[in-house]
């Protein structure tokens, strides 16, 4: 999977006022590459990630997933792409409170009309094998975030997007989680993009992109 953004603009209409959140942003993420996005608050990082993840459509520009421009697809098609190709990790874990850990993962298979496979492997991989039958309110913050990552990966998506995945974690837990993400991306030949404020996790990224005032300013190879 490769992710390509070409000349993406995003203008928020706020009543009569217009606010340019992204101004001619372009970037490329190759298969197996884990990219970190940094920048000051309000610079447009979350906006960029939402556009890459088809949660938001750009005002102009192209968003290519493996060459397909998702910016012009219908809402229904876009939802399908998200299910099939994209794994999200949010700032908060956003688990469903009424599902046990194993069902947090099963729900993806149900949505995708795929048979529920054994989730034990992937959960063991994240050190959650003993928490399979627990509800989210019985987990620690770090465990919840690991479940969220496992959920993002369960459908084997080719694009992984994470918006400040370590914000709710202490620094050692945060490092652990990002390390896991980087490993999944590198070994699974996926494209990975992570927005972060946390400098201590930047070391796990293959590249760092800086955004300032809606412009991609600095690409560090």
């Amino acid at each position, binding site marked *: 999977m490769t992710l390509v953004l070409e000349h993406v603009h995003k203008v928020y209409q706020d009543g009569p006022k217009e606010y340019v959140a992204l101004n001619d942003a372009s970037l490329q993420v190759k298969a197996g590459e884990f990219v970190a996005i940094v920048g000051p608050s309000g610079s447009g990082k*979350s906006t960029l990630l939402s556009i890459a*993840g088809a*949660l938001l459509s750009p005002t102009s520009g192209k968003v290519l997933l493996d060459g397909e421009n998702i910016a012009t697809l219908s809402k229904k098609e876009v939802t399908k792409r998200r299910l099939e190709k994209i794994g999200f990790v949010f700032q908060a874990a956003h688990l469903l409170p009424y599902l046990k850990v194993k069902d947090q993962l099963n729900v993806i298979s149900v949505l995708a009309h795929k048979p529920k496979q054994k989730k034990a492997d992937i959960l063991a991989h994240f050190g959650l094998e003993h928490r399979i039958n627990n509800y989210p309110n019985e987990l620690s913050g770090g465990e919840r975030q690991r479940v969220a990552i496992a959920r993002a990966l369960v459908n084997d998506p080719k694009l992984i997007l994470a918006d400040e995945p370590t914000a709710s974690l202490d620094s050692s837990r945060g490092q652990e989680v990002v390390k896991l993400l980087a490993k999944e991306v590198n070994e699974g030949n996926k494209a990975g993009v992570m927005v972060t404020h946390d400098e201590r996790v930047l070391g796990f990224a293959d590249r760092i992109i800086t955004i300032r005032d809606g412009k991609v300013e600095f690409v560090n190879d």
Partner: protein
Amino acid sequence: MFLAIRELLFAKTKYILISLITTLTVSLIFIVSGLAEGLSADNASSIQGLAADYLVLEAEAEGELGNSFIPMQQAKEIMNDQEQEANTLSVQMMNATIGGGDKQISLALFATERGGMLMPEVMEGRFPKQENEVLADDSLKQEGIQIGDELQLGEKTSYVVSGFTTDQRYSHTPVVFIESEDLKQVNAVAVKGVAVTDGDYSAVPKIDALGGIPSYSQEQASLNMMIIFLYVITAFVLAAFFYVMTLQKRDQFGVLKALGANNKYLISGLITQIILLSVVSVGIATAISFGVGALFPADMPFILNMATIVQPAIIIIVVSVLGAVVSLYQVVKIDPLEAIEGVAA
């Protein structure tokens, strides 16, 4: 289904409480329906069960059996005009005493030709043989009347109960049937099949003649009004509950959409929950209503059977689903973006 069921089980308390409320309103619907059915039978079972399809009444009576008077001569002509079987029917409301005692009993005296089709079946005792013998509704037993007892009507007339029939009530009183050949006027000619009439007389389908029984329409209308209000209340309670639940779960719906759940899946989950809830409520309410019905005294006009319940049950489920439409609209409107920047869950 996957999510709908798990959420129901996880938030049991909430859903049990709401089912409790709907179970109570649904029970009330069933009990009032049973009462309506019971009162209807108590008022009109003798007409509902009449072995005829049409009643020919005096045109001026406007469908009211009690206001229609047909001289015997005319009645005979009407009978002769009919293609199928026809018999005269005379209805008189009376007070009687048992063998001249003090206790007054109200009853309806139905008179018809000897050997005609209108006499009901004998359940106990035997068919009237002599001129002064009558067939009585078995609800008269509750007044202490037995086979062989004498019913004194006024000073001169008295009848002997030769047997009992069942389900023969008119205007909330038991019916007593007599075969009589010397009537001077009757109230109606009861006809099988299609009735043939001319200008002075009009034929009314048996069911429409019920409206002509005193208080029948008013009784049924007020009970039906209660039932309709209960439907509306049940629908509103469920609609409000699911609306609030949906608002509370906005961010969950947002997350699911971000993960790739489409509207169709989320909506069918919501409808599954509503149908499950109303079906469970209807099920429990059915048991409660039959239980309550069994506790009622035997002479209380209350008839509840599966046939009485099916129609309201279907209406309740349909109305509940309709009430959910506002919530469905909320679900469709939710933007998956709400999840990504939402507060921690």
